[in-house]
């Protein structure tokens, strides 16, 4: 593997898809402004903590949406505008190209989410502190919130769920993106819905739907250490998730999807 080519390929993804950082940036700015507006009326540490949780949750939701749309277009758009012929004229293998696209939802977006969440929370905290100080009140209570736990809990959730647990989802979307001749969005989601419906009609069971729901919710429902409400906490047994078969089955599915996507990128002609 040529790491220089891999890094440049990731970089080019960021050039092409500016929504990767613009979308979360805009969401963060809107929430920070709204939070500051609300903070003026009722400034309790609990309010501040809930706003921080909202920032983390909203940014995760935003980057997940960005990731889904990014993956669906990643190998489809380059065939549609025929630019794949240019990318293939460069000494970059199909593996490097597809892995660089897989790295965007699995590495780049979680990193952006993490950094942007912390920066936004810090700006909100500083702005609230400045507001309180300007009105002759103490901001000390705000700084005594469990920041470290909140941040580490968010990091844990990002790495385990948004990167590792969602890997098969991203792999599947890339596969469809490499395969579809039109409407990758429909091809990605209709078959999943169809399997669920057929299972329900034929066997009157909902295993597939339950499995899919558990995957999307992060498979953490069984985890008693998971915090209540929107608060994400660092679990008591942080490496327990590595023992879950679901994680490894997901990795295997992701690897299969990526391998097929690489093969499709080699075989498929521009649309």
């Amino acid at each position, binding site marked *: 593997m040529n790491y*220089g*080519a891999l890094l440049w390929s990731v*970089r080019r993804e960021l050039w092409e898809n500016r929504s990767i950082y613009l979308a979360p940036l805009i969401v963060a700015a809107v929430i920070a402004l709204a939070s500051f507006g609300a903070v003026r009326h009722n400034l309790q540490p609990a309010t501040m903590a809930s706003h921080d949780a909202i920032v983390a949750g909203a940014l995760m939701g935003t980057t997940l949406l960005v990731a889904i749309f990014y993956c669906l277009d990643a190998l489809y758009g380059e065939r549609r505008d025929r630019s794949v*012929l240019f990318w293939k*004229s*460069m000494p970059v293998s*199909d593996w490097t190209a597809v892995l660089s696209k897989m790295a965007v939802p699995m590495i780049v977006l979680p990193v952006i989410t993490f950094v942007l969440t912390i920066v936004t929370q810090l700006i909100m905290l500083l702005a609230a502190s400045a507001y309180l100080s300007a009105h002759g009140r103490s901001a000390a209570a705000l700084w005594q919130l469990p920041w470290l736990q909140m941040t580490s809990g968010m990091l844990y959730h990002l790495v385990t769920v948004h990167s590792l647990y969602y890997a098969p989802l991203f792999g599947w979307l890339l596969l469809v993106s490499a395969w579809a001749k039109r409407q990758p969005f429909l091809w990605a989601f209709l078959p999943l819905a169809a399997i669920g419906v057929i299972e329900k009609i034929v066997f009157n069971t909902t295993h597939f739907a339950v499995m899919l729901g558990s995957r999307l919710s992060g498979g953490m429902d069984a985890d008693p250490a998971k915090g209540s409400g929107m608060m994400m906490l660092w679990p008591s047994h942080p490496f327990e998730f590595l023992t879950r078969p679901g994680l490894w089955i997901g990795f295997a599915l992701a690897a299969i999807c990526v391998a097929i996507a690489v093969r499709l990128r080699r075989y498929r002609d521009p649309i």
Partner: protein
Amino acid sequence: MAVIEARGIRKAFGTTMALDGVDLGVEEGRIVGLIGPNGAGKTTALNAILGLTPYQGQLTVLGRDPWTARAQLMRDVAYIADVAVLPRWIRVSQLLDYAGGVHPRFDRDKAEGFLARTAIKHNARVRELSKGMVTQLHLALVMAVDARLLVLDEPTLGLDILYRKRFYDALLNDYFDQSRTILVTTHQVEEIQDVLTDVVFINRGRIVFASSMEQFESRYLEVVVRPDRLAAARALRPIHERQMLGKSILLVEGADREQLAALGEVRKPSLADLFVAVMETQGAPP
């Protein structure tokens, strides 16, 4: 040394044979024109050579199998597949950065030098450039790659005659040397006649004619025959005959120049004339 060696290349799309047993050998330092009517298999042949499409048969390009080793091959091969393949969202400066980043043989200074002669700005996006500028940009990129084989598929399609002339001038003067090889396809046969060292005609997925330009020029002659000598001229078994302004123009292979001069005015045929002659004896593609 052989840059391209193809033996019995076949490629089917459904029931259509796009390539039906192509044999082709291209030596280093040649400029080869691959010429054929629409649907003859030109682009499919180039795609096979560039590792863009799977095929049956034996094919090596610079000693490699292009289908299994495309990425490695692209260090030594540059190509322009079509004028419109540069991504439209990319900026000129990003394109240079990217090529410099992933391509070990890309010389950025050289590309900048070519671009300095154009009106293309560094911060412009490809979508903002005119068709001619996009081609200039792409050409600047591929000419800055120290490649051993350059493949051009209809590089001047849709460009006006001024750009086309400049394109081939730049190719010959700034790029080509004895260690490089160029394979080019085009519809504008007459335009590249003076550029080529070799010519290959393809029709219905087969190579129907291959010759060096030297051979072509010494073997083929055209004679404008006076009506009273027509029978004598036809005895030479011309490979093609056409009428123009009441005179018969015969294309003759391997005839003696003196002998022809007795029949009428002798002149050099153009590649286009030979192309038409060969295609008409072959029959047009379905």
